[in-house]
């Protein structure tokens, strides 16, 4: 450290958030007495223009070279003040931020003296650390101006389009042979009632015709290496199996039928297939997973189709994960599912309606449906100890958010098409939270839908009616609205409003090293402040891979993800925080303990150099891959590694300061 530290300390009132509990003036007074502190001030709102100008002025006028601020959480305004410090000509890492609001005033509202004392300790520790701060420079990396978007559903398409529109290259990878994802399986969508496939076709059209976007269908990501700005990606693609010339003949000749997952098993399709009319790409594809390998006869020749797997390597600066969701599939016997033929899921009913447009009456397996019951929260909001756990031992305790409005939207459609149908809606809570969604609930009430409210602890029971009953199925439900009386509802069809589950993407999660929440959906860094970024730099989330969302929210999330990618890669440079491990070559003697302790690939390695004719082995850090976790610091026997900006020496100084005897001072003040 060359120059003598001149520290400025600021204690922010945060408009009362801090000052209502912490005696800020007293804190400032005590801090002024700390060594090397040249000025200690309070401010009503330090993040305001006036507050920031004060800091700049002090740096310029008083020659301040270290800044300590006690204010809100650093996640909120640390960056603000870094910029303030830069404007005044100081290195931004010569500033330290203390979260007085979240860590002190908000949690000790009943103990003003204690909170004040704690504030003094925290701030004194900040001053002690500031004294030892070194100027740092952010890590600059070359960035590949190309993004990889995983998933060709509505979120992936939107993200790809938004990124490409800003001039960046996009590689869009879709696992299935066709674009469109789950949205293609919907009929009309709330809240506008537009047809899903028309909206989707418009989006697909733009993506397909965009010269910056390359699309790979039947393709999966099989390897990921590298770091933000420079990910190495390996793609594995299955072949289509047919060509434009022979597609029709092959499809016509193909005899093998399998359940059509596009219609959730309601119909069958050939193994050479297109899911729906007008899908993209228009060329049929072979379902390799189900193809039995038997020859197909065309023009007197028999042909055995072969899957030719190809692999590609590419580099990408950022990865957008838009892998989407799977609808929950009820267990056998759950609400009679797969035991009674009259029990279906809502996605199945949506397909059934789409397959029978203009039907005069609702028919199910040849029988007219007079009474229908729709049950909410199937596979959602499950309760531990009551509901049977999923495969991983957890229950789906989250709300799938979309199903309430989807169910009520279906009810509206049923009512419009079949006015005489008796409709029962079994719900826990109606969560029609979006703009215009409540209208579906109000309409359902007005059109005579009968709502029955059950408690999660007492699920409705679905069973076959005894012989001679007027209806094939009986539903028993304890209705909270009828003063917890048990009702018996005789019905012809039971519809289960199934929730959303994350897709099986274990391999991808492992490759990208992203985290998942307890609900198994991918996890963002911060639900409020950084809602689309993952803890892995350069890996961004879009859509329902992150959690249940409707189409509108998926598109918002996708556009947000695109914006993040664009701001990350737009300049062709990626800037990272310098808080990474740094090896002191003087002290390192190449024990390799750090390399063993490191959890991250290619972050630290032993390298051998020749110095003064001698071979020396030392640890070398690759800053782009280092997360600054500190595992290496803890194991180094020589104290040869430090995390920059958070060195051991700084920690020791902070601990000493926190432990200092200040109680008397506070009381005296």
């Amino acid at each position, binding site marked *: 450290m060359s120059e003598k530290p001149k520290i400025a300390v600021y204690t922010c009132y945060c408009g009362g958030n801090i000052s209502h509990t912490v005696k800020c003036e007293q804190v400032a007074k005590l801090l002024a007495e700390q060594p090397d502190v040249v000025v200690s001030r309070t401010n009503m709102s330090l993040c305001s223009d006036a507050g920031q100008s004060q800091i700049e002025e002090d740096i310029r006028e008083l020659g301040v070279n270290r800044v300590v601020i006690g204010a809100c959480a650093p996640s909120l305004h640390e960056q603000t003040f870094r910029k303030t410090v830069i404007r005044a000509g100081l290195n931004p890492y010569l500033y330290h931020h203390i979260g007085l609001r979240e860590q002190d005033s908000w949690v000790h509202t009943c103990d003003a003296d204690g909170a004040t004392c704690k504030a003094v300790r925290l701030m004194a520790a900040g001053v002690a650390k500031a004294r030892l701060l070194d100027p740092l420079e952010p890590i600059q990396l070359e960035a590949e101006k190309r993004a990889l978007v995983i998933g060709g559903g509505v979120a992936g398409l939107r993200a790809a389009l938004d990124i490409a529109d800003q001039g960046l290259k996009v590689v869009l990878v879709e696992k299935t042979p066709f674009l469109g994802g789950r949205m293609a399986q919907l009929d009309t969508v709330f809240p506008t009632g537009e047809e899903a496939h028309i909206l989707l076709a418009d989006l697909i059209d733009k993506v397909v015709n965009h010269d910056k976007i390359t699309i790979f269908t039947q393709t999966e990501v099989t390897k990921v290496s590298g770091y933000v700005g420079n990910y190495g990606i390996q793609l594995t693609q299955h072949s289509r199996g047919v060509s434009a010339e022979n597609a029709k003949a092959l499809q016509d000749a193909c005899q093998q039928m399998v359940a059509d997952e596009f219609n959730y098993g309601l119909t069958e399709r050939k193994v050479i297939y297109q899911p729906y009319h007008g899908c993209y790409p228009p060329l049929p594809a072979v379902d390799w997973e189900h193809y039995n390998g038997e020859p197909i006869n065309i023009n007197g020749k028999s042909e055995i189709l072969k899957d030719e797997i190809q692999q590609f390597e590419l580099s990408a600066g950022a990865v957008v994960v838009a892998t989407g969701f799977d609808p929950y599939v009820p267990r056998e016997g759950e609400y009679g599912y797969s035991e009674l033929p009259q029990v279906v899921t809502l996605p199945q009913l949506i397909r059934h309606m789409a397959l029978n447009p203009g039907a005069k009456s609702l028919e199910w397996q040849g029988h007219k449906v007079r*009474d229908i019951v729709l049950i909410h929260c199937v596979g959602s909001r499950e309760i531990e100890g009551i509901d049977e756990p999923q495969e991983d031992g957890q229950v789906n305790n989250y709300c799938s958010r979309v199903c309430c409005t989807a169910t009520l939207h279906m009810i509206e459609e049923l009512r419009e098409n079949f006015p005489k149908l008796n409709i*029962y809606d079994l719900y826990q809570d109606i969560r029609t939270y979006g703009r215009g969604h409540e209208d579906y609930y109000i309409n359902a009430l*007005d059109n005579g839908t*009968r709502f029955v409210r059950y408690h999660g602890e007492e699920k409705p029971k679905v069973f076959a009616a005894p012989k001679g009953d007027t209806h094939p199925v009986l539903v028993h439900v304890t209705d909270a*609205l009828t003063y917890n*009386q*048990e009702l018996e509802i005789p019905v012809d069809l039971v519809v289960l409003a199934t929730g959303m589950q994350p897709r099986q993407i274990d391999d991808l999660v492992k490759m990208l090293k992203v985290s998942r929440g307890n609900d198994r959906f991918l996890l963002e860094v911060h639900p409020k402040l950084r809602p689309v970024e993952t803890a892995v730099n350069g890996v961004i989330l879009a859509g329902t891979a992150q959690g249940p969302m409707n189409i509108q929210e998926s598109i918002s999330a996708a556009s947000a993800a695109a914006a993040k990618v664009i701001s990350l890669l737009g300049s062709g440079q990626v800037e990272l925080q310098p808080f990474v491990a740094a090896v002191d070559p003087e002290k390192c003697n190449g024990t390799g303990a750090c390399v063993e302790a490191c959890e991250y690939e290619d972050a630290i390695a032993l390298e051998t150099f020749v110095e003064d004719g001698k071979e020396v082995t030392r640890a070398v850090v690759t800053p782009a891959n280092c997360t600054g976790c500190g595992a290496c610091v803890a194991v180094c026997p020589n104290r040869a590694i430090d995390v920059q900006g958070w060195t051991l020496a700084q920690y020791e100084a902070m601990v000493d300061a926190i432990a200092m005897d200040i109680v008397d001072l506070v009381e005296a003040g």
Partner: protein
Amino acid sequence: MTATRVDPELLSELKEYGDGQVETCFNCGNCTAICPFTSAEYPFPRNMIRLVQIGGAEKLKQSIDPWLCYYCGDCSQTCPRGAEPGEVMMSLRRWLTAQYDFTGLAKKFYTSKVWEIGAMVVVGVLVVVIALLLSGPVVTDQVELNTFAPVEIVHVADWIMAGMLVFFIAINVFRMWKYIMVDGMDRKVPFSLYITEAWQIVLHLFTQKRWAQCEEDKEKKNWNWIAHLLMVSGYGLMLVIIIFFLKWFQTDEIYPVWHPQRWLGYYATIVLIFGAGRSIIGRIKKNVQMHRFSHASDWIFPVLLLLVALTGIMMHTTRYLGLPLVTYYTYIIHLAFVAPMLILEVPFGKWAHLYYRPLAIYFEQVRAKAKAMPVAETQLASAD
């Protein structure tokens, strides 16, 4: 507990009995929160509306609740969904009247205007024919009503009619008792309770005092209750006179004004005209919640009352003016209004609330007492 089977048809059935918008209700419970009569035992009107929504006809039949409501209309005004809970309760009273009635006529009258008005006309015409057939000599020199319509014969006809009414009422009340006190109870009620609580019937029949509580928190007096009480007093007075004192009432001798025969008659007529007129004007103006919706049966009852009272006055006047023929004809017309009002309205129409309401309050008290007793005691009582 056996499950209540839902019945989607009940809602549309009840629509024929009134204008409640049951289907729009989202069960918020504001109606029950505002109601001064609601209790943990009887959380109406929400529980009733819910039973209509799910079609719990059996549970509804066993309910007292609709009879405990006096339609102040606070619930309808508070309802955020315009479900008209007050009107639903009114419809349920009509529906219950139809359920208690074993002949099925009440249902016909409530659900078909043709049936109701047709029956009125038939009974009226029948009365005219019988009256003309049985009438005595027409004296035109002076008014001799008792020669034209001998009071002995009319009195006998009164008693025949009263006997018929008692017969229908007894059976309907028995059915009401069975639904509420047997089917709707989880235990047997000791007979002694029916005796010790019987005074409730008399009290509520004559005072309708429960209704007076409807607006107890408000500054303004409950004029509906007062007007209704007056009208009931006139009606009851007339009923007693006609059934028991007709010979004293229907005389050709003209008494002085201070004679009770005169002023009792005037009092009854005035309060009847006032009460019925107020109800009719209210239903035309629709300015209070109670009068916003008018079922055909709501019109027929006060209109008949008014016509009975007006023809009574007219007859009285023409007799004093010494117009014999007009008096005789008016008398027959008067009978043609009186008969359907009693024969059809009493067991099958709106009039029935006169005994269903006090009985319901009586049953409620008996029920409460029975439920408060230790279970063993009630079983013991039933074993006797």
